[in-house]
């Protein structure tokens, strides 16, 4: 399943790159890309475990940038 999210408060491109790398390491994530300029996360992940995976994504994001919020589009 493919879904898009908006990332608020993401000012640092290096942080976006770090997040992207961290999210791609999560088990069940097929592909995740962060578009820093558009403040958008596009994620393709296992549909059955999607909610659980998204929780981990949320954690990974917070770890890099605590101010950053994930909003569904």
């Amino acid at each position, binding site marked *: 399943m493919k879904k898009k999210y908006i990332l608020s408060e993401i000012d640092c491109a290096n942080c976006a790159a770090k997040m992207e790398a961290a999210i791609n390491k999560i088990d069940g994530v097929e592909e995740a890309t962060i578009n*820093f300029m558009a403040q958008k996360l596009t994620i393709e992940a296992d549909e059955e475990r999607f909610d659980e995976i998204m929780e981990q994504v949320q954690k990974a994001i917070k770890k890099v940038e605590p101010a950053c919020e994930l909003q569904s589009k």
Partner: protein
Amino acid sequence: MTKSQKKDLARIIIAGCMFAVLMILEHTGILPEIPAEGYNWLGLGMFLVPYTIIAYDVVISAVRNITRGQVFDENFLMLVATAGAFVVGEFSEGVAVMLFYQVGELFQSIAVNRSRASIRELMDIAPEFANIEKDGKLVQVDPDDVEVGSTIVVKPGEKIPLDGVVIKGESMVDTSSLTGESVPRKLRTGDEVISGCVNQNATLYVKTTKEFDDSTVAKILELVENAGSKKAKAEKFVTKFARVYTPIVVFAALAFFIIPSIITGDWFEWLQRACTFLVVSCPCALVISIPMGFFGGIGVASREGILIKGGNYLEAVADLETVVFDKTGTLTQGVFKITEIAPENGISEATLLETAAHAEQMSNHPIAESIKNAHTEAGGEIDLSAVTDAQEVSGHGIEAVLRGEKVLAGNAKLLNKHGVVFEEKESAGTICYVAKEGKYLGHIVISDVVKPEAKEAISELKDTGVKRTVMLTGDRKSAGEAVGKELGLDKVYTDLLPADKVGHVEDLLEESTQKGKLAFVGDGINDTPVLARSDIGFAMGGIGSDAAIEAADIVIMDDDIRKIAKTKRISKFTLSIIRQNIAIALIVKLGIIVLSIFGIANMWIAVFGDVGVAVICILNSMRILSRRKKY
């Protein structure tokens, strides 16, 4: 400014004012002298107030990140560097460096937001609402909720929210945000409309034919937004670079701190130098300016009616060396028109055309159509009863009886068969010879017309450094070569079947230099394999054509082939800005690193090397957007 930016600004102002007051007090001697022995606790207390105001978030983040295992981030470095200043009693230095850092961060945040906003403005084609008539009243609804087949009302000045067909009304429509074309298009009842255009002067009633997600505007937005996911080589390189770079820098700094400290015993001095070194080596300026540059380039291009599907394609266009064109519909208009009417002596053009049009009246061959159209456009009428017998002789033309006289209209074979005496002509187009009662009346040339801007487009491409221009066509040799000569193309391949085109493109790819890229330009309908095989596939006339948007890497929204050269100019400028940014960042940072090793650079300079350089790079990237008119 956003809320958090305003808050940061307030903190900077308050802390800055307090700092200024303290500095004045210190320098005018109102503050007690620093005691010769022992620590200056009073000074610490006073300077700690502005420091807390300006630095609390940095301290909190640093501590939190350490507990999460992220040690060497910017926050931690700033904390160590400024806390170090406090330890040795350099309070003003500690506060000032933190102030400077926060000002830089604020600048960076504002600059990023600004450029985001201006890129968004460039792509501001998304409609916010659709008007629907309900119980005699107009209601605004979300375009997402409009079902296919509904009637929407588009008032003057509003964006057309969904694709559809005009069922009532007549108005001029501005398509510039989609095509870059500034001349408005006229829409009448029955015409198709494309979402994203702006209705200009009268209300239009539109029956929708697509849902919002399938509408042109949604497709374009998705395409441009997803462009970021296909990263350019430069972008991938920097991400990889940052991943390797950060640990190397951290270990270098540790070694840099520990080894000289053991030798000299001056631990504090080397801690300061190591922190300076770490702050300046933050790769943010590099990491930020590259995606920003590509995004800006893609944004500018989309405003010009050029949709680029990824940074990698924008990057590749800069090295464009060979451009291969499809002929029909790309270099030519793809419609047959009469380009020459050559009657024999004593016969008028009108008579020749009238005779041919009547003979061809039953035929629906494209050539017959264009002759009939030319006749009616010239004010002539077709009298159906005048033709009593008409036969199509396949591969030859038409034999008909017009007002009792036998008329022949067709190729040379047809006239030869009937023993008509005439002179055979050579032409780039298709020739239709006409004879009546065995007497030759003249000939009509029908050709596919070359686009008026095609010649200019080819010479513009040469100006941008394209070395070879090639045309592939299924047409006859004479027709193809005439077009090639007229436009100044380097090579023309004719009589090709669709499958041959791939082979020719492969040969051309082999002949290309290592670095040079090959682009294929087609209408996206029959040339999907060729578009896929070439380095960059350009599709023309993308509006409303799903096939073109799917198959190509770059879609030119109107049919203007001059935009290929424009794409190359945008690409070159974007890449030159990106290179400048990489150079600025690396040179400044390396310089400061060297200075910090020798203890010449202090924390101020290091903070400039970090956030200052990032801001410079962001501002430099903005030039891609602001130069828009000159591409």
